[in-house]
């Protein structure tokens, strides 16, 4: 139940035990967005974490009901802005499923390439912000240096750096830029050299490891019952990679591993993301020289109309499973749209993880959950 709390509140129970309630956020550097946490403390130990949502709610699902099937895709870039491509991809897949459109092979390869570049860029930013939360400032600049190269590639091909709106029903909006392949290869060559620096600067640091190991342990049972997905669940050893188990586009023909760690603590979730970046590099390497010739967009009608019925598709974003559910009544706009965003389920486990830990560890736990608040509130 929601109740307003004072900025700082102390309460003493019948046995003389003193509890303190403090507010972290909605404007706080460690929450990376407008997340409001009401934390009940016993001394320095966390008794309860109560996330309050809604500070950036824009009613995107309702907005989509008044937009056509071509138009609504751009809104989803504003949800999980770090994996905007993959969100757009999920929506485009769902509309294509309804229209029964075959996407040309060239478009499929371009889409997967863009998805994996986005995944690297997203994990890059997470890594920098995560290390900064734990007090290391330099990694933030290293992460942004590599992310900038991906952003430049995106800018050249899609025309925007963050909210690309590149995926359209039936394919992609433009063909790839002539420089695309050369620049991606340059990036990969540079990146493989740089990724060892990350281990050197942060992963192998004993101080960093001590702050991560054994903190916020999530059991596989809890991960499943809370509906966690993505690196959060895979850090606990739960098989949940949509790309592997429910392959879409050309993922079934690609060679890559589902990254799993068994620890379930913050360090395991950290390692999953670090290894996932390397897997993404593997996928890009397989595809970058093998982009088939052909159309980049299937022919679709000027006004899209989905047949009456319900359509669902899911994709693996950088944070987990992103689902799009469209109910159509046969018109040009959806009757109802529901987005299953990974951030919401991953946030719900925060209270479970944080209980019993020290307040300083909350930053590490929240960092490894990789929360993007607009994705949670929508």
């Amino acid at each position, binding site marked *: 139940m929601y109740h307003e709390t004072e900025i700082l509140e102390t309460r003493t129970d019948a046995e003389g035990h003193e509890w303190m309630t403090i507010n972290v956020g909605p404007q706080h550097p460690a929450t990376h967005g407008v997340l409001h946490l009401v934390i009940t403390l016993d001394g320095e130990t966390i008794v309860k974490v109560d996330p309050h949502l809604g500070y950036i709610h824009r009613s995107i699902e309702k907005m989509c009901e008044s937009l056509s099937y071509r138009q609504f895709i751009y809104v989803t870039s504003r949800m999980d802005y770090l994996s905007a491509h993959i969100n757009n991809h999920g929506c485009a897949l769902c509309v294509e499923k309804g229209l029964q459109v075959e996407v040309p092979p060239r478009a499929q390869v371009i889409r997967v390439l863009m998805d994996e570049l986005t995944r690297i860029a997203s994990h890059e930013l997470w890594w920098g912000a995560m290390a900064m939360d734990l007090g290391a400032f330099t990694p933030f600049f290293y992460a942004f240096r590599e992310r900038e190269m991906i952003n430049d590639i995106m800018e050249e091909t899609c025309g925007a750096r963050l909210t690309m709106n590149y995926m*359209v029903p039936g394919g992609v909006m433009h063909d790839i830029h002539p420089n695309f392949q050369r620049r991606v290869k340059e990036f990969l060559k540079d990146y493989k050299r740089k990724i060892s620096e990350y281990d050197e600067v942060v992963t192998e640091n004993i101080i960093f490891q001590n702050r991560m190991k054994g903190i916020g342990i999530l059991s596989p049972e809890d991960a499943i019952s809370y509906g966690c997905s993505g690196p959060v669940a895979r850090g606990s050893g739960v098989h949940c990679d949509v790309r592997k188990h429910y392959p879409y586009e050309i993922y079934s023909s690609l060679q890559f591993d589902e990254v799993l760690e068994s620890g379930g603590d913050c360090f395991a979730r950290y390692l999953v993301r670090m290894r996932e970046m390397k897997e993404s590099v593997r996928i890009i390497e397989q595809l970058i020289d093998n982009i088939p010739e052909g159309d980049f967009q299937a022919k679709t009608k000027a006004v899209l109309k989905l047949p009456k019925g319900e359509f669902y598709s899911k994709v693996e974003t950088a944070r987990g499973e992103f689902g799009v559910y469209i109910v159509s009544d046969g018109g040009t706009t959806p009757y109802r749209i529901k987005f299953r965003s990974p951030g919401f389920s991953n946030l719900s486990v925060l209270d479970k993880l944080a209980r019993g830990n020290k307040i300083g560890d909350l930053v590490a736990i929240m960092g490894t959950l990789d929360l993007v608040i607009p994705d949670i509130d929508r």
Partner: protein
Amino acid sequence: MGVIRYLRDIWRGAVSLARGMRRTLYYFLRPKEIITQQYPDNRLTLNLPERFKGEVVMPHNENNEHRCTGCQACELACPNGSLKVIYKYEITAEGKKKKAIDKLVYHLELCTMCNLCIEACPSDAIKMAQTFEHSVFDRSQLIKILNKPGSKIMEGVE
């Protein structure tokens, strides 16, 4: 034993920290590997890719002619209502009524640069410009009229 472990932990922490600092020192001594753009100072040499979505513009040729027929496809394609076509009817030489634009009003403050209008335009009348410094003191200055005063439709564009 506790003391030895404590001291060993401190030693191992210091060694791993020094290893990380070595990387920092590497970049400290090689400033050329650091890519920093001196943004406001490099405005003149700043090259944005030709696909960059900055704002919608309507290109005119040297005779002050554009390619817009006033078909309103961009207005229909826009998700936020940033574009508004105000059209009029012109009498052609054969005496027929023909639709033409009076004004193409563009609300930059509503635009999200999604490129859907450019895709929808059948006669390539509008395109994205590479400008990005849009800040003004009053939001009414963001409402722009894309066709220049006195401009006409180009010959042969239907």
